[in-house]
C-alpha cells in the first residue's frame, strides 16, 4: 500500500469507492448484487473446479504411464475419467468465460451500472454453487462411471439401482443448466437494452458480440439438456422406458437429445474464448481489428450452425446414411466462420505494433493450438475417416486442442489481460510469459502424441493398452505434468501480484474499450456518468504517459468555456 503514503486523498477515494472494499464483511459479498463481485466469486469457483478437474486429469495420465495397472483398477479408472470430464465440462469450461469474465466485463464494457437483472445474476451464482456441490458429492460418493455423457442404455441399465448415481448426477446437471440459462438471459437483455447512447450494434466490442452469441446458444440449447436429463432421471426413478430398449424405447434418441444440447454447448465453450482473442489481438497489436463485421457476423453464424451439426457425434451410432451425409456436410460449414476469425486475427497483427506481453503470448498460443484443433476436426467430420477414428485418442486430442488449447488458453490470456482491471494489481510479466511457454510446450507434448495414438488405433477411455503404445503414452504423461506446472506458475504469478504487485494504472495496455476508462479496480457504480462512446478499436487518441505507467486518452483540444471563445458566446 505504498500508494497510500504518496497521495492520501486519491487512494482514500479509491479504497472507499472501489468495488472490492466499499462494503465489508462476509454478507456484503454473499448477498452482493454487484456484477463485479459476482464475477469474482464465479472466478474463484470455476478456478477451484478447474483445479479438481486438472488433478483428476493428472491422475489419469499417471495411470496411463504403464500399459498395466499402476494404482487405479478398471472401475476406478472409469470413475476418474467420468469425474474429470463432467467437472471440466459442466463446472469449468461452460461457466468459465461467460460467467466469470463475462459477468465482470459485460456491464463495464457497455458503460452500464450493472446487468439487467442483478438478483437473477446472484441467483444463478448460487444455483451454480448448489449444483456444483450437489454434483461433486454425487459423483464422489456414488462413483458414477458412465462418462460425462451419461449414454443410455448403460446409464439406464439396472446396474445403478433406482436412486443411484445417475439420478443425482443428472439432477446436478439440471441445476447447473438453469444457472447457465439465467446467465445467458441476463446478458442478452443487458446487451439489448442497456447499451449507452451512441453504441450501435456494430460499435460494440467484439467480446460482447461473442458473449451475445454464446448467450443465445445458452438460452436455446440448455433447456433441451434440462428436459433430457430430467427424462433420464425419470427413466431411472419411474421407469418411463423412453430410452430403455427393454421397454420398447430407443437409446439412440437419448444421444440425439443429448447432442442437440451438447454440440451447441461446444460453442458455448469456444465462442467467448474467441471473443477474448479478438480483443487481445487488437489491443496488443495496437491496430484496429481487421474485418470487424466479419468477426461479429461469424460469431452469430457459429451460433446458428452449431444447432445443425449434432449428428456428427453419432456417425457410428446407427443413423440413416442420408442423415450422416447431411450432418457431415453441415459440419464442414462450421469451419467457414471459424476460419474467417482466424484469418482476421492474423490480418490484425499484420503491420501492427505487436507487444509480446503475457496476454498476447497466450493469444498467439491460442491461435496455434486452436488452428490444429479446428483442422483436425475436419478429419472427424468426414464420414470415411471418422469410421476409423471414432472413439480413438484422435478424438480426445482433437477436442482437447479445441477446448483446452482454445478455451482454457483464451481464458487464461483474458484473465491476465483484465487482471489489472479486476484487482488493481500488475503481475510479473516475465513469469507470465514463462508460464505461457510451459503451457505451450506441455500442451503439445501431451496431445500431439495422442493424434498418433488415435490414428494407430488406440481407443479412448481404456485403462490398459498394448505395449507398442507405451512410448507415446509416456510422452503424453510427461507433457501433462509440464502443462500442469505451467498452469501452477500462472496461478502463482496471479496470486503473487495480489500481494506484491504494483498498483495498476487505469489503462495499462492502451485499450480503447470502455472498461479501461474507469479506475482499476472500478468503483462499485462503474461510471459516475454514462461514458462517451468511442470506436472500441481506435488507438490513435491514446498516448503512453510514463508517470502514470499507463495509457491516457488525449482528446483533441476542445473547450466548452465561453470565455475562451468569446465570439461563440456572443452569438
Amino acid at each position, binding site marked *: 500500500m505504498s500508494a497510500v503514503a504518496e497521495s492520501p486523498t486519491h487512494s482514500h477515494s479509491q479504497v472507499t469507492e472501489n468495488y472490492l472494499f466499499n*462494503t465489508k464483511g462476509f454478507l456484503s459479498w454473499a448477498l*452482493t448484487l454487484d456484477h463485479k463481485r459476482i464475477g469474482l466469486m464465479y472466478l474463484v469457483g470455476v478456478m477451484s473446479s478447474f483445479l479438481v478437474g486438472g488433478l483428476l486429469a493428472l491422475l489419469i495420465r499417471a495411470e496411463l504411464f504403464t500399459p498395466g495397472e499402476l494404482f487405479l483398477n478398471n472401475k476406478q479408472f472409469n470413475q476418474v475419467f467420468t469425474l474429470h470430464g463432467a467437472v471440466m465440462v459442466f463446472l469449468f469450461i461452460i461457466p468459465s468465460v461467460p460467467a466469470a469474465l463475462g459477468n465482470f466485463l459485460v456491464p463495464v464494457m457497455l458503460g452500464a451500472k450493472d446487468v439487467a437483472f442483478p438478483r437473477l445474476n446472484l441467483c444463478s451464482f448460487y444455483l451454480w454453487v448448489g449444483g456444483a456441490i450437489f454434483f461433486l458429492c454425487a459423483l464422489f460418493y456414488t462413483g458414477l462411471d458412465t462418462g460425462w455423457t451419461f449414454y443410455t442404455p448403460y446409464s439406464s441399465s439396472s446396474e445403478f439401482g433406482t436412486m443411484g448415481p445417475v439420478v443425482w448426477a443428472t439432477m446436478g446437471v439440471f441445476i447447473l443448466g438453469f444457472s447457465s440459462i439465467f446467465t445467458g438471459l441476463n446478458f442478452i437483455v443487458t446487451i439489448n437494452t442497456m447499451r449507452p447512447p451512441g453504441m450501435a450494434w456494430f460499435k460494440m466490442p467484439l467480446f460482447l458480440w461473442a458473449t451475445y452469441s454464446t448467450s443465445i446458444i445458452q438460452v436455446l440449447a440448455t433447456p433441451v439438456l434440462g428436459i433430457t436429463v430430467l427424462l433420464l432421471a425419470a427413466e431411472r426413478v419411474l421407469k418411463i422406458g423412453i430410452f430403455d430398449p427393454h421397454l420398447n424405447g430407443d437409446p439412440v434418441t437419448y444421444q440425439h437429445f443429448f447432442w442437440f444440447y451438447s454440440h451447441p454447448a461446444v460453442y458455448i465453450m469456444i465462442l467467448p474464448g474467441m471473443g477474448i482473442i479478438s480483443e487481445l489481438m487488437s489491443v496488443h497489436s495496437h491496430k484496429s481489428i481487421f474485418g470487424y463485421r466479419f468477426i461479429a457476423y461469424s460469431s452469430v453464424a457459429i451460433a446458428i450452425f452449431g444447432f445443425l451439426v449434432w449428428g456428427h457425434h453419432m456417425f457410428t451410432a446407427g443413423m440413416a446414411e442420408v442423415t450422416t451425409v447431411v450432418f457431415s456436410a453441415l459440419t464442414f460449414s462450421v469451419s467457414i466462420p471459424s476460419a474467417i476469425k482466424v484469418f482476421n486475427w492474423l490480418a490484425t497483427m499484420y503491420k501492427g505494433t505487436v507487444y509480446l506481453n503475457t496476454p498476447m503470448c497466450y493469444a498467439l498460443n491460442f491461435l496455434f493450438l486452436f488452428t490444429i484443433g479446428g483442422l483436425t476436426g475436419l478429419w472427424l467430420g468426414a464420414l470415411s475417416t471418422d469410421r476409423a477414428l471414432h472413439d480413438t485418442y484422435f478424438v480426445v486430442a482433437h477436442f482437447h486442442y479445441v477446448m483446452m488449447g482454445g478455451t482454457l488458453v483464451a481464458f487464461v490470456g483474458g484473465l491476465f489481460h483484465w487482471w489489472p482491471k479486476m484487482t488493481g494489481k500488475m503481475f510479473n510479466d516475465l513469469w507470465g510469459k514463462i508460464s505461457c511457454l510451459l503451457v505451450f510446450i506441455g500442451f503439445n507434448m501431451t496431445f500431439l502424441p495422442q493424434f498418433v495414438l488415435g490414428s494407430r488405433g488406440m481407443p479412448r477411455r481404456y485403462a490398459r493398452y498394448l505395449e507398442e503404445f507405451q512410448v507415446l503414452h509416456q510422452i503424453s504423461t510427461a507433457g501433462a505434468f509440464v502443462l500442469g506446472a505451467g498452469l501452477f506458475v500462472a496461478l502463482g504469478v496471479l496470486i503473487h501480484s495480489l500481494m506484491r504487485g504494483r498498483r495498476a494504472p487505469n489503462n495499462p495496455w492502451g485499450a480503447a474499450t470502455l472498461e479501461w476508462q474507469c479506475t482499476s479496480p472500478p468503483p462499485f457504480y462503474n461510471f459516475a456518468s454514462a461514458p462517451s462512446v468511442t470506436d472500441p478499436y481506435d488507438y490513435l487518441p491514446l498516448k503512453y504517459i510514463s508517470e502514470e505507467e499507463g495509457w491516457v486518452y488525449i482528446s483533441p483540444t476542445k473547450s466548452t468555456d465561453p470565455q475562451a471563445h468569446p465570439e461563440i458566446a456572443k452569438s
Partner: protein
Amino acid sequence: MSHEHTSAHGAGHHGDGHGGHGDHGHLPFLAHHFDDPEQQFDSGKLGIWIFLVTEVLFFSGMFCAYSLYRSRNPEVFMFASQFLNEALGAFNTCVLLFSSLTMAWGVRCAQLRQKNGLVLCLALTLGCAAIFLGVKAVEYTHKWDIGLLPAGSYLAQPEVPVHHEGLSPWLINLSIVPGILLVAFAVWLVITFVKGDKRMSEIAGTLLATAACYFLGVFVGLKFQEAEASSSAHAAHEISVEHDGDTGSHEAGVTADEHAQGQPAESATSESANDHVSGTTGTEAPLKEIEAHLVSLDAPKVVPGAPLDAMVNQKGGAGLFFSIYYCMTGVHALHIIGGMVVMVWLLVRATKDQFHEQYFGPVDYVGLYWHLVDLIWIYLFPLLYLIK
C-alpha cells in the same frame, strides 16, 4: 442523474431489493441501474419473452418424444388414448382458458391502478389453477388405481376394475398437502381477523379460497367421473338391450371403468354387435375400431385378426404412452404450481398497492408466463386426449 453512492448503493449491496435508492427519490420502483421506467419495463419484457422461449424448448423435448413414439407406434397411441377422460380434459381446458382471461384482466387492472380489481383477478386465477390441479389429481389417481402407470410399472389389466370403498387412497394421499394448507390458511385468516389486520386477512382469505378450490376441483372431477361411468353404463345397457346383450360386459366395470366410456362403445356398436361374443372385455370395442382403422391405413405392424390388445396393451406399448402422458402433464402441472407461487407473490405486492400506470411490469410478465402455461395445455389436450 446524481449519485449519492455510498448510502444508496450500499443498501443495494445488502440485497434488500431496489426500492428506496437515493438517486431515484421520486421513483421508488425504479432499480438503481436503470435510467428510466421505460428501460426497466423493456428489459423485463425482453427477459420474460426469452424465458418463455426456454420454456417452449424445454417442453419441445417431450413433444419430440411424443411425435417420435407416435409415428413409430400409431396403434399404441390410438389404443391408449381411449383411457383418458375427455370430459375432464375439456373441463380443465375451459378452466385454464378462463384463468387466462382473469389474468389478462388483472394486467389491465394493474395498468389502471385498480387495486381491488387486481386482487380479485389474481384470486380468480389462483382459484382456477387450484381447480385444475384438483381435477388433475382425480384423473391421475384414477389411472394409478387401475394400473395405468409409466412403462416400467404398467399393469396390463386396465379392464379389471379396482374396488375400494369410498375415495381412492392415492387421491387421499395427494390431498394431504392441500388439506394442511387449507387448515393453515383458515387458522391464519382467523388470527389476522382477530388482530384486525385487513391487508393480511385479504391475503389469507384468498389463499384459503385457493386451497378450497383444489377440493372443489376434486369434487367436480369425481362428479364428472361418476356421470361418465353411469352414462357409459347407461349406454352400455341400452346397447345390450338393443343388441341382445353383446356388450353387456360394460356393466361390470360401471364405477371404475371410465376408459370404456360411452362414445367408443356407441361408435363401435355395429362392429361389436356383429363380431363379439358376450363376456369380452371393455377395451374390445375400441380395439376393434382401431384395428379396422389400421387395416384401412395399411399400417405395416397390423395383421388382421391378430390379438391387437396383446400387442399394444403392455409395458412397452401403452405403457410408453402413459410414460409420455405423465411426463408431459406432470411437468405442465409443476409449471401450474410454479405459476401459483409467483401469483401469491404478486398478490402480496398488489395488496400493498405497488402497481400502477408507471409500474405494472411484474403483473404483465407473470401474465405472459401464465398464458404460455395455458397455451401448452391447449396443445397437450388434443395431442393426448382427442386425437384418435
